[in-house]
């Protein structure tokens, strides 16, 4: 096991490639949007994508696309120039419930996680139940992202990634 700080910096690209792959499968290969029980995951790109294009060792270009009806073509254009996704805003739907959240590639930080609304805590006795409900709702997002990451990384550490998956992503980008 590498030193944590060293591995964080050395392998930042893994999470960014994962987010780029997520975007690719949402747009092109929804059969991969499945959880560990092979159930389909209803995941959509939200209203914010941030991409990073490393121009050289010292400089990077950040491309941020925002807005409910934002045109993602600019993002594809950035991918064509060599950028990768570094942050994604996603919507997850289950039945009529919606979760919204941002995920950062390098840290896997989940920010602005907004689960479906829950009842207000009015009595002290309600706290235990409210915590369990919130835990369940937050866990949903970690669960689906872990399931998708498992699929991605299992592919990423095998030759199949370069042989099969990368050509498909390339043809989507180019």
């Amino acid at each position, binding site marked *: 096991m590498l030193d944590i700080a060293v591995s964080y910096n050395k392998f930042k*690209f893994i999470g960014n490639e994962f987010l780029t792959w997520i975007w690719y499968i949402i747009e092109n290969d929804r059969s991969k949007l499945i959880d560990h029980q092979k159930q389909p995951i209803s995941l959509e790109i939200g209203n914010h994508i941030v991409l990073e294009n490393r121009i050289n060792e010292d400089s990077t270009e950040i491309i941020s696309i925002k807005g409910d009806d934002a045109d993602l073509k600019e993002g594809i254009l950035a991918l064509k120039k060599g950028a990768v996704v570094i942050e994604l805003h996603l919507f997850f739907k289950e039945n009529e419930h919606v979760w919204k959240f941002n995920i950062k590639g390098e*840290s896997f930080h*989940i920010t602005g*996680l907004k689960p479906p609304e829950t009842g207000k805590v009015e009595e002290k006795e309600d706290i235990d139940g409210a915590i369990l409900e919130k835990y369940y709702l*937050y866990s949903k997002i970690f669960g689906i992202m872990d399931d998708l*990451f498992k699929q991605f*990384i299992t592919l990423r550490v095998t030759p199949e990634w370069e042989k099969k998956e990368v050509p498909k992503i390339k043809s989507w980008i180019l």
Partner: protein
Amino acid sequence: MGILSSTVSVTRYRVNEKFEKSIIDTVAQGLKKNKIIEIDDVPQEMSVGWTTFENPFIPDFENRSFIYGNYIIFSLRIDKKSIPSKLIKKRVIIESSKKLSESGRDYISRNEKKQIKENVIHQLTLKIPSTPNIYDVLWNYEESTVWFLSTQKSANEEFETLFSKSFHMTLIRLFPYTLADFSDYLSDSHKDNLSKLLPTKFTE
């Protein structure tokens, strides 16, 4: 942002060690020993410590539980006094002028200036109240995972340090590499490949 807020930000950790003694006793001891210390009316700029989830301004772990179902829940509180630099500058100028007129001299040495500034900061830290920031911690002891409800770098660093000091356990941040390396679904040879990965070129 707390667990019960409508929106949260979360950093996930894995706890590397298992409890050697009773979970409740170990956690209770660590929390009580390192609970937040009030710094209002004390010449201290910052205080970092644990507090209770339900009443973060009264850090009483004797009378409040931190066990909720299968989870241990408490909060990290960081109290900080922010003294505006312009206020320090103003008070230093006033105190320096006073010193000059009292001594009858027309200059003050660098050391005297330094001393005046230190005194000014000391006086102001006594007067200025601290601003508390509260971050909830959710520890799933069965799964050895911890959620810290903030993604701020400085808050995470304070949290990691205090956690290790309080419970003698190491926290490992879960980011893509550690998630993969600690997984039980990658074989040893796949983990070996993981450590040799290079960035993919999607455009060449």
